[in-house]
């Protein structure tokens, strides 16, 4: 593989501006340089076959039928040096501690509002604030047990937090499977370099869930609640249930009895469930409380949860902090609750609800990324420099009509890493989604899921919009002899 012509216009994860590999990536880059085009192509085919055989898919529902697609997987791993990762990990731990304290406070005394650090007005208009959660004290004081934070690096090489997914973040199964594929394809590199393992996640997730059981002492009965086979993340639901050895249930498998306990329908009769890792959105989880027509949820589940008879992860209402406007306040939350400075900087954000910021956004809309507060999957946003004048005008109107619902960030030139193409290695933009587990302890995945835009110059990495994935290597240089 020829690195001679490889140049990125942004900060590249593997290759420095002078064309030499970054220290942590050197063994990988040299190894790849030693492979012929044909050897490389063979390995890519082997990786694709491995992914298909292992059944790494996500489901796309089109034309009335569901199709399993394989997530495009690029062979070349993204490499991060261990010392840098440790700083990042500390930043993620700090963030999730503050976020959980914030959610608990919001559904409790709202001290942060009283102390005028966080404007209460924002809550009134938050679509993810659930009044049914007010006054609830979930086990261990944790609301967001599983958090997927998206990190991006700008052209200067600084790693920023872009958003925190506190509702039902997905993608961790791809992180685990990507590693299995990479090991099959590059066994030599795993022998000669110290690449930290990622496979502790399922047992850490199990421990995190088990610690929430309302019946401590007994072996808890844990279930993963899935919306079913038509959900795009169904593969992941199966994968996680299987790797933890817990039940995979659908709404119809559960019911809440008069004693407020939640039960599964089994061939032995009803069996009590202690902990539910729910992958169904808040609004569909209980027709008694939310969407009455939802068939995905369980009637009475919120009642059972409020009574402390079943634990839900993530807790309903945790999404109140998963809001792109609330996001802007995370550094202030860290200061307020923990008395610390944020280790991991936020991507600078302009809140359209604030007049000064709004004026700036309206005047500079062509340079900014404008996002609605509560969309995910990259939908409904404007990338200013890539949009037409008409789209700018349209977004100005949207912002003015509902300022609370919009925030803007500078258009970062996301960092890149090489992917394999027919024209040799080519830079593509990427981000990183580490997963953070909070229960009795906090666990951060080793690296996370690297999502990469497979199209040249594209900044959108979401799988629903043609993004792919790479294995992420945290490399320990100190261990290299």
């Amino acid at each position, binding site marked *: 593989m020829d690195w001679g012509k490889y140049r990125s216009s942004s900060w590249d994860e593997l290759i420095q501006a002078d064309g030499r590999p970054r220290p942590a990536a050197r063994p990988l880059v040299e190894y790849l340089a030693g492979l012929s085009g044909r050897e490389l192509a063979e390995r890519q085919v082997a990786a694709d076959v491995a992914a298909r*055989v*292992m*059944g790494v898919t996500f489901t796309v529902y089109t034309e009335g039928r569901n199709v399993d697609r394989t997530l495009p997987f690029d062979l070349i791993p993204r490499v991060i040096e261990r010392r840098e990762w440790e700083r990042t990990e500390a930043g993620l731990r700090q963030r999730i501690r503050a976020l959980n304290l914030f959610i608990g406070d919001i559904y409790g005394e709202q001290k942060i509002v009283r102390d005028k650090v966080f404007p209460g007005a924002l809550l009134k208009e938050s679509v993810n604030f659930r009044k049914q959660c007010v006054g609830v004290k979930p086990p261990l004081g944790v609301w967001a047990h599983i958090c997927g934070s998206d990190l991006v690096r700008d052209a200067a090489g600084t790693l920023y937090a872009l958003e925190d997914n506190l509702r039902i973040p997905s993608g961790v199964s791809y992180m685990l499977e990507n590693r299995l594929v990479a090991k099959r394809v590059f066994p030599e590199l795993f022998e000669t370099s110290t690449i930290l393992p990622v496979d502790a996640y399922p047992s850490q997730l199990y421990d995190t869930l088990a610690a929430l059981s309302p019946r401590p002492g007994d072996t808890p009965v844990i279930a993963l609640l899935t919306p*079913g*086979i038509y959900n795009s993340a*169904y593969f992941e639901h*199966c*994968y996680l*249930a*299987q790797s933890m050895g817990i*039940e*995979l*249930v*659908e709404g*119809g*498998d559960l019911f809440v009895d008069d004693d407020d306990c939640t039960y*599964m*329908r*089994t*061939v*032995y*009769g*009803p069996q009590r469930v202690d902990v539910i890792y729910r992958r169904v959105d808040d609004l569909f989880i209980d027709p008694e409380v939310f969407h009455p027509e939802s068939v995905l949820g369980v009637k009475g589940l919120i009642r059972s949860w409020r009574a402390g008879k079943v634990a839900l992860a993530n807790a309903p209402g945790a999404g109140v902090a998963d809001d792109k406007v609330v996001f802007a306040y995370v550094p202030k939350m860290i200061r307020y609750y923990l008395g610390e400075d944020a280790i991991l900087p936020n991507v600078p954000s302009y809140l359209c609800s604030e007049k000064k910021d709004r004026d700036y956004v309206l005047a500079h809309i062509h340079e900014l990324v404008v996002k609605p507060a509560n969309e995910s999957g990259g939908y409904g946003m404007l990338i200013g420099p890539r949009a037409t004048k008409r789209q700018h005008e349209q977004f100005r109107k949207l912002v003015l009509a509902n300022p609370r619902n919009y925030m803007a960030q500078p258009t970062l030139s996301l960092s890149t890493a090489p992917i394999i193409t027919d024209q040799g290695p080519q830079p593509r933009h990427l981000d990183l989604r580490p997963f953070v587990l909070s229960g009795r302890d906090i666990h951060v995945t080793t690296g996370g899921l690297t999502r990469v835009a497979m199209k040249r110059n594209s900044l959108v990495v979401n799988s629903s919009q043609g993004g792919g994935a790479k294995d992420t290597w945290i490399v320990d240089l100190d261990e290299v002899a």
Partner: protein
Amino acid sequence: MLSRVADNLYWFSRYIRRAENTARLVGVSGQLQLDLPRSARFAWRPLVETVGAADAFAKLYPDSADSASEADVVRFLLVDPGNPLSLRGSVRNAREILRTIRDTLPQEVWEAVNDIHLYIDEHGERGLGRRYRLDFINHVIDGCLRVSGLLTANVSRDVGYQFLRLGTALEQADMTTRIIDAGSSGLLRARSGEDEEAFRAMQWMSVLRSLAAYQMYRRHVRQRVTPELALRFLLQNDQFPRSVLFCLSRGITILPSMPSRDAVGASLKRVLDLVRKADPVKLAKGDPRPFMDQLQRGFGSLHDTIHEAYFRT
């Protein structure tokens, strides 16, 4: 074990077993036809009744009625999208069910079922013609047996496994009676009276072959094939795994490993008694079909009892 998962395991194994039997039936019938003298005619239509799809067939081929052609019946039984009970339909059902319980069974089972599904999609049309039909059918049978083998070799003997076994046993018992049914319907139309006895023997050999039973019959019975002996073997042999008695007895041995439900045991014993008391000599002399229908109704009510006891909690 969730009731929904148990329900799906039960139906998954039924569909796999149904697909395998359907494939065998079509394959053996085609072979029999090749062996026939010119004076005899092979009637394909009764095969449609075997899978209980007469209505769907009449809708798709309104003109062919009694004189249904080989091409129509083979297409109908193997791949016709208008026949939910076709080979392709059974495999598709098995696969759709498996999607919802993928976490319960080993990954290789999913791969194996997916392989059959893709194979049928790719080769189904070509497999209709006589030239490639046997290859196609054998490939599908191999695929189904691979699934059965994976289940036997690699699945823990928990309660879910019992539902797999129960589904297989009940489906095989049912298919055996259906194939006997078709065999008794005079697949062969002799053009002269004297050929008739010879043809009847050929026909029962074909029934035995459809149930992979011919060789075992020869070893156990050690007599040439007659309708009485073939019927006795397929209904009442206690060692051949596709005989009705064997399948139902297996059901009796499975029940103690399942949550206890009196109604299921009682229903199973009722139909087992019917089989034990059957008189093959008498059945062979007359028309065995009403008795096969009676057995099928017994399986139907057994299924309803199982459904009520385990899947509707």
